[in-house]
């Protein structure tokens, strides 16, 4: 009744090709953005913003990156965390070389280094695919993780072996470092995620996105149609690693604050991001957000939510339960709904469209 396309006429091609052809979707998007921009900082306390919303935004961006590679192009990568690490470390090097340049610019630029490394490790994808490629990306994971610890140049020869996030300001407000408030960091994250999601959306709906999907569905047929596999696969690696790199820089500079940099970018993180993509929905941008929200909030919910409900749960048990639950859910989703939460969202919208007369 409220979610109808009846009466919304499309009179030109641009309107017909729109990402959100329904007026209700556009209003919905505006409402969500409004909540994110005004509602969350108004209602949420610092804990909620710093340890729920910021991780959610960071992981969403990383999941979008991996989704471009795995969901849209069909190339499996187990090295996302390593590419995130490249972003974080190159952002750190850049900010020590150019202290005067705005940190947001540097975060965006550091993604480019990650993209370059991603293309380098994507090169084997031209000869190998499937499981073989998954193993090849593990090479990136282990090599880069090793480099973050063993190459002192990367962390400026610090005795601690960790990178320190310096204080950087925007319009006089500190946005990184110890004195930045969660709200300002949240706004920076939100801005970056919104802009980059818009960018990703345009990419996957455009010519490049089409060629990625053709490669995913059947690479030989795509080649016959004139799509250059080399270009499609390497751009997928580049764009995917760019997103991962920006997410990694955000992770260290806007969420963690430095110290842990050498032990967060592990294979565990790579797997977690892969799970976000699987549970959220392969080949769906909105699914990346759903998956990130789900996987990122699950440990917090178990750790703080269940005791609040009266179920006693220690930290260690919560961790085990998280592992079992994530494992079981992956299998459940693969069996019941291979397209993940995004597909459930789509079904809900379809039901709303025909409600209250489903036939």
């Amino acid at each position, binding site marked *: 009744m409220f979610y109808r396309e009846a009466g919304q006429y499309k009179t030109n091609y641009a309107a017909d090709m729109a990402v959100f052809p329904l007026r209700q979707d556009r209003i919905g998007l505006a409402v969500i953005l409004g909540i994110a921009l005004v509602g969350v900082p108004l209602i949420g306390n610092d804990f909620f913003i710093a340890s729920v919303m910021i991780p959610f935004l960071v992981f969403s961006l990383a999941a979008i990156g991996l989704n471009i590679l795995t969901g849209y192009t*069909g190339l*499996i990568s187990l090295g996302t965390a390593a590419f995130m690490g490249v972003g974080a470390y190159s952002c750190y090097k850049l900010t020590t070389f150019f202290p005067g340049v705005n940190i947001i610019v540097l975060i965006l630029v550091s993604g480019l280094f990650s993209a370059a490394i991603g293309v380098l490790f994507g090169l*084997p994808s031209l*000869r*190998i695919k*499937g*499981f*073989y490629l*998954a*193993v*090849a990306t*593990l*090479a990136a994971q*282990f*090599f880069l*993780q*090793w480099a973050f*610890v*063993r*190459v002192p140049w990367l962390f400026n020869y610090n005795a601690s072996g960790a990178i320190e996030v310096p204080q950087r300001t925007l319009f006089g407000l500190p946005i990184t470092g110890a004195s930045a408030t969660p709200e300002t960091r949240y706004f920076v994250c939100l801005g970056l995620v919104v802009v980059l999601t818009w960018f990703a959306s345009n990419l996957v709906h455009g010519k490049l996105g089409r060629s990625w999907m053709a490669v995913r569905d*059947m690479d*030989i*047929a795509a080649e*016959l149609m004139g799509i250059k596999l080399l270009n499609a696969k390497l751009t997928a690696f580049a764009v995917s690693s760019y997103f991962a790199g920006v997410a990694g820089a955000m992770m260290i500079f806007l969420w963690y604050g430095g110290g842990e940099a050498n032990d967060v970018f592990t*294979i565990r993180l790579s*797997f977690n991001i*892969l*799970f976000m993509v*699987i549970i959220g929905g392969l080949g769906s941008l909105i699914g990346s957000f759903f998956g990130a929200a789900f996987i990122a909030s699950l440990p917090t919910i178990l750790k703080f939510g269940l005791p609040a409900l009266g179920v006693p749960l220690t930290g*260690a*048990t919560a*961790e*085990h*339960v*998280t*592992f*079992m*639950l*994530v*494992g*079981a*859910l*992956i*299998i459940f989703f*693969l*069996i019941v709904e*291979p397209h993940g939460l995004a597909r459930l969202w789509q079904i809900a919208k379809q039901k709303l469209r025909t409600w209250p007369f489903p036939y």
Partner: protein
Amino acid sequence: MAQAPDLLAQTIWEGLVSGVLYALIALGFVLIFKASGVFNFAQGIMVVFAALTLVGLYEKGVPAFLAVILTLGVMFALAVTIERVVLRPLVNQPDIILFMATFGITYFLIGFGESVFGGSPKQMITDQLYLPKGAIDLKILGGIVSLQKIDIAAAIIASLMIAVLALFFQYTRIGRALRAVADSHKAALSVGISLNQIWVIVWFTAGIVALITGIMWGARSDVSFALEIVALKALPVLILGGFTSIPGAIVGGLIIGIGEKLGEFYWGPLIGGGIESWLAYFIALGFLLFRPQGLFGDKIIERI
């Protein structure tokens, strides 16, 4: 290298031993991949889980050999469960979906194993299983090469197991059925082979291999979930040897094992050490550039 031939021999021996253990994990992968086309990422965690179950049962007061039998029972139950809960509903799905499902199995087993047996490292029950201890010192090449007896035992047991598996695959009814299923699910079904039964058998066999690997590996170091990372080493072994070849798994394992030990020993210190964590992958990647199907793998010819 030439100045200290005894050190070289020692390094090669250590590489050989870890190569055997990599090969054993890779063997579990190959078994399952051959017979069902599933790339089983969970094989590494199955090794940990089997070893942990064995030690955990022993710590709960079960006699050692009864614990081995009970662990085999657990692995069988695991195989049946995986077949019922995961594989049967996912039959006919793309390979990549099944691959991701084994990630789910991995994570479930990590959580399950830790919550039942605890996450702390445990001592493998070497004495109770009458596994040899101590070392033999060989005087060769003007120095002393020390061989751990447990390593020799591991090599012998591994070769025996591989021989048994090869005979099993080649000469028994079930072995033939397994090869038929590997060739084509549909054709195997149409001649009356029960796919479900075959899957249980294959996963149980992989479980047995996992238990033996777990015992051998646990005897060298503690039994803990840190082995999980070591188990990932089996992946370069696989791409080196080819996914479908048992000899490939063995040769690949030995090449990777020796290669990474030599690399770590001679070139590791030059660039900061600890290169063992990625050297294996680069050796495998190097091979991939020349032979994408691995040393002994089947060449896949694609048509539209």
